């Protein structure tokens, strides 16, 4: 029975492909692709149906499915494209077989045809979905790693002065990472002063403040000093409303001001060599400000 169904499908492959493409077009499963050219959609559809057929022919012994799934993920197309495509294929295949066999009123036979078709379609569908989701999970975990690498960089800018710019939300995991990087960096770079820049932190609530206070205290314990910079006016107001005490270390509105204080604390000074010709350190300060 199964062999017979398979032969019917393979014999009528041209017709099935034609009907399938029409059905996909009708269902408008590809309407998300406003920015995708019609040509690209048609090409992918043809590739999709070829993948299905090569799998039916080889009984699932090829790597086409994996490659195709990967391609769909890379194109950024939704999972629905794959599932709806397979559903359309199922419908078209069953209809073609029924037309080939001729009128049948036998429920048993109809059921066995449906089961036979499902036996091919479902494994292909499952594999496509699995490949798609594992590709997706892979991308997410790679991005997580990439984000983690970005999350708490420590930049030594001068002898004894180091800057840690913080951008984005600080959660428990990141707070731990910040503390570790901060302490390791302070010791490695032999920093006397560390500037923690929170310009890019959207909200400073009690938890974030608590982590910053702890980090500053830890930095003090290893013999260095923290300056908290980048406190925007609205953040200053919320910190006051919350009643958070940040008196134990200096705070500044901008990195520029913080850097000046840091220079004073390390005994360095900004001296203008040639007035009017522009000051190199001033330029450095300005370029830091723009970062």
């Amino acid at each position: 029975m199964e062999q017979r169904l398979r032969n019917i499908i393979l014999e009528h492959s041209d017709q099935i492909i034609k009907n399938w493409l029409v059905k996909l077009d009708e269902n408008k499963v590809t309407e998300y692709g406003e920015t995708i050219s019609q040509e690209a959609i048609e090409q992918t559809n043809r590739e999709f149906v070829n993948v299905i057929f090569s799998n039916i022919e080889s009984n699932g012994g090829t790597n086409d499915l994996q490659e195709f799934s990967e391609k769909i993920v890379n194109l950024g197309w939704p999972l629905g494209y794959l599932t709806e495509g397979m559903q359309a294929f199922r419908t078209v295949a069953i209809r073609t077989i029924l037309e080939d066999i001729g009128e049948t009123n036998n429920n048993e036979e109809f059921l066995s045809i449906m089961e036979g078709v499902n036996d091919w379609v479902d494994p292909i569908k499952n594999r496509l979905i699995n490949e798609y989701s594992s590709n997706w999970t892979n991308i997410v975990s790679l991005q997580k790693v990439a984000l983690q690498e970005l999350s708490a960089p420590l930049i030594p800018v001068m002898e004894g002065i180091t800057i840690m710019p913080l951008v984005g939300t600080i959660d428990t995991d990141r707070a731990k990472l910040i503390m570790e990087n901060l302490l390791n960096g302070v010791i490695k770079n032999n920093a006397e002063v560390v500037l923690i820049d929170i310009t890019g932190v959207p909200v400073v609530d009690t938890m974030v403040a608590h982590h910053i206070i702890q980090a500053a205290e830890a930095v003090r314990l290893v013999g260095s000093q923290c300056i908290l910079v980048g406190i925007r006016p609205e953040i200053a107001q919320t910190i006051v409303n919350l009643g958070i005490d940040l008196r134990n270390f200096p705070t500044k509105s901008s990195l520029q001001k913080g850097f000046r204080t840091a220079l004073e604390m390390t005994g360095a000074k900004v001296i203008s060599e040639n007035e009017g010709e522009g000051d190199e350190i001033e330029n450095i300060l300005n370029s830091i400000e723009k970062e």
Partner: protein
Amino acid sequence: MKGTLSNVPIAKELDIVGARQTGRNIATELGFSSVDQARIATAISELARNIYLYAKKGEITFQQVEGVAPVGLKIIAKDNGPGIKDISKSMIDGYSTSGGLGAGLPGVKRLMDDFDIMSSDEGTTIHVIKWLR
């Protein structure tokens, strides 16, 4: 635009960011100044974190209300956690059962205009309102 505007479930740490973002967007739409937006976002952050920390699960609801001013943003933080043992203590600065700064609830009260808290061993509900002035 009246009544409930949005509902954000809190179950993991990332949801705090989601609630805050939703609240900030609503505050912007209602026309709050950037300072008030920061206050609202911070208050949501505190309330959502309290849910995540003490009750594990709950939700934050945003409502547009009318009252002493024509437009106000009401935020309801509701959970079915163990409740707050001593509410009056929890409203004192520096009191914390989790080793935090203990500025959360009293801070929220100062950040917002209206503050109302109900807590029993069946859960905690906190209503706060910020009026648009």
